[in-house]
């Protein structure tokens, strides 16, 4: 089933929820909204070597919305960086599976969790690649909260100005943030128009359609002299009906036994 990206995304969702359940805390909503992007990145598009996570010529990935790391750990585990059981030691004492991405975890390319810093780190990787004449590409997933941080816009201005065509951002537009809908806290307005005005190539897709995600990432490779910003329309909690679009599941939450069972049953049937 390894070549079926939808099946892999389903496994990422299952492992994420099992880890959050065991941890009795964590962020399910935003983990489920990025599962499909991670499946395409780690199982199709990115050139990486799980046996050599620090390989200097690998493609890079930065999860700027670090609270969604249960999905990242799940993706890395299913890709073979470490056992799936280890991904389920999320947030537990003695485990390296920190509550937000820790650089020491095999396959994690950057620490994150404080919003707004991920795109800059990705920009630095892309600039290093250009300086060294290396062909690897850098991918960053940003969330709604990231897009409210000033640091992110500094990076957008800089990357556009520098024409970093080896840098791709996927914006997980799931419309809910920690306390309330994005629209009531600080509306982002027309994100594509704003980013485009800074010199980026932009593409709008359904962030749960693996074929569309793959196509957008392939399109980004053909764009010269501009970084690419993929506006992914997503559903927070995607794949579990009682979590979809429900603010409570942003987290951090303690999942009840029945909630996990119901969620896994739904994902099993998917």
């Amino acid at each position: 089933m390894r070549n079926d990206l939808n099946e892999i995304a389903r496994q990422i969702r299952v492992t994420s929820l099992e880890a959050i359940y065991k941890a009795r805390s964590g962020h399910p909503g935003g983990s489920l909204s990025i599962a499909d992007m991670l499946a395409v990145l780690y199982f199709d598009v990115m050139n990486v070597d799980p046996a050599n996570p620090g390989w200097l010529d690998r493609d890079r990935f930065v999860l700027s919305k670090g609270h969604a790391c249960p999905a990242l750990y799940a993706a890395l585990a299913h890709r073979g960086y470490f056992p799936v059981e280890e991904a389920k030691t999320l947030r537990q004492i003695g485990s390296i599976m920190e509550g937000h991405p820790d650089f020491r975890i095999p396959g994690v390319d950057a620490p994150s969790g404080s919003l707004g810093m991920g795109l800059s780190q990705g920009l630095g990787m892309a600039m290093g690649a250009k300086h060294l004449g290396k062909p690897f590409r850098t991918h960053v997933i940003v969330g709604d909260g990231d897009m409210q941080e000033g640091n992110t816009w500094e990076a957008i201005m800089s990357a556009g100005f520098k024409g970093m065509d080896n840098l791709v951002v996927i914006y997980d537009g799931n419309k809910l943030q920690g306390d309330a809908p994005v629209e009531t806290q600080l509306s982002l307005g027309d994100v594509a128009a704003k980013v485009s005005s800074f010199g980026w190539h932009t593409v709008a897709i359904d962030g749960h359609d693996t074929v569309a995600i793959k196509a957008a990432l392939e399109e980004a490779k053909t764009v010269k002299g501009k970084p690419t910003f993929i506006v992914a329309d997503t559903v927070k909690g995607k794949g579990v009906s009682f979590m979809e679009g429900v603010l409570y599941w942003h987290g951090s939450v303690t999942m009840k036994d029945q909630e996990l069972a119901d969620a896994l049953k739904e994902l099993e049937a998917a």
Partner: protein
Amino acid sequence: MMSELSYFEKGKEVSVREAFGRILVHEAGARNDWVLLDADVAGGTGAKPLVGAHPDRVMQFGIAEQNMMAAAAGVADTGLIPVVSTFAAFGCMRAHEQFRTAIAYAGRNVKLCCSHIGLDVGPDGATAQMLEDFATMRAIPDVTVISPADANEFMQAFKAILDHEGPVYMRIGRSPTPVVYGADHDFKIGKAHRLREGKDVTVVATGVMVARALEAAKTLEGEGISVRVVNLATIKPIDVEEMVAAATETKGIVTAEDHNIMAGMGSAVAECLAEHAPARMKFVGVKDRFGKSGEHNELPAMFEIDAAAIVKACRALVK
């Protein structure tokens, strides 16, 4: 072929930022594994000569320090050594969280070199006079904090930090400061340097205060007070052995820094000695207040961080 590094003449007054420009150009010729990250202040930090001589070694960010700092972590991920340079208020405060989370927490091999430190800044006044950088930077785990005494020590320290694996913060002085070291100096990270022997009291000084400590020691010698002067260029990790020697071999310690006395170098010495060899201490530094405009050679007297202030503190300890 790489050229011999030219040192500054001992006894002359040289701005440390001039040494920054000189060593950058020198090291650009010597090795190609590092790049300078600048935020439109190369003229102020002293990095300008590199921009002219090796523009390909400079990554320009404009006035966006948070982006520059977090990007440095990414640049380090590719194997290059980023030398991040800006004014200390921006590098050690505005972008402090980026340094902590993206750089130090990940153990990134980034060298942050900041000018505009302390009252040494002079007329730009309080907003540019960073009197809190030792406090903010030494509070982060695994960060090496260095404050060279003069232009020559700075150049040696710069070479040393490029060879050192891990995050480093280093101060760059702005105003002309007496050159106390010659080419024969042997700077080592983590090693305090005893510049003058003495048995009555020890002055532990850092940065521009080292020359003032030597001046104070000379004055006190005339009064029959024998002063040991130790240059604490590496504030973290602190040289415990040399601090304990000062505490046990002399009757008291005066710390001298162009920084707030709260959470500064003196505090680091006190933390060390409280545990290893409790000593009588006096703290010469800016007494928990903001800086002010004025010339770099006028402000020290006003804020009592000049040689006279050190003399006074030493006298009080030997009384």
